[in-house]
């Protein structure tokens, strides 16, 4: 299967790889996994007091599309409010990366990682 140039770019130069301290109260952590492929994704957001995402980091074990999807969302969510970030859909991610139908679940994983992180943020408050 041929990956799109954007997937290859994010895969070869992933943005914002790493971890924040998950016990830091300003850090929200979203852990998600896709049983279909066994991919595991951790997305962490650093959220300011007024609900703006100041920074994001990810760690993903999975295929190129899963890594590219998570790398892309860390770029996208920076500077956004949690309300805006919550609206990021997997279709937008899949379109931006030109993911083929068999890799749509990678974009779903990234969307769900944002949602899981925001839930964690709300539960920490």
């Amino acid at each position, binding site marked *: 299967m041929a990956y799109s140039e954007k997937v290859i770019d994010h895969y070869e130069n992933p943005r914002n790889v790493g971890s924040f301290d998950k016990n830091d109260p300003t850090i929200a952590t979203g852990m998600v*996994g*896709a*049983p279909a*492929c066994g991919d*595991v994704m951790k997305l962490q957001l650093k959220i300011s007091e007024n609900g703006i995402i100041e920074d994001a980091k990810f760690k993903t074990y999975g295929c190129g599309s899963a890594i590219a999807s998570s790398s892309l969302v860390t770029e996208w969510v920076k500077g956004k409010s949690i309300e805006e970030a919550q609206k990021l859909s997997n279709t937008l991610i899949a379109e931006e990366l030109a993911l083929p139908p068999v890799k749509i679940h990678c974009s*779903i994983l990234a969307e*769900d990682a944002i949602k899981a992180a925001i839930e964690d943020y709300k539960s920490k408050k």
Partner: protein
Amino acid sequence: MRFFDLFELPVSFQIDSDLLLERYREIQKKVHPDNHANASDNEKLLSVQRASEVNDAYETLKKPLNRAEYMVSEHGFDVRHEQHTIRDGVFLMQQMELREELEELESASDIEAAFDRFYADIKKLMTEYTTKFESEFEQGSYELAADAVRKLRFIYKLKDEAQQIEEKLLDF
């Protein structure tokens, strides 16, 4: 075609693999296309199809993960093809840590021993979730049984990856 019925075996994760192989060979002999050399084209086609179905059934029941997936699929849970994600934080964190550990095995002083320890940990997890799957399935809690199968998919994938890495490292 119900796979367990085909081989006249009870619907159970605990399977008699010798008996499965024996029944598979008996059926394969009967349906093998070579035994239908004088049949009509239509009958030949049917026997080819049948032989491939029997192969598929055997391969499915032979491998533990496939067998468990098949058992929950019979109750409406298509774990292999479903798109939704799981969010069990404790389980996923453990999976992530194991994957990090695997990355570090390359630099172990005794690679073989390090991998053996790693496989022992994976095996423990496999046993834990297989037991959970079996007991939920027996109680008719198919949603919970499917959840255990979902987790087994992560564990089996980790084992495959570990084996690939080990082969690469030990390939002199």
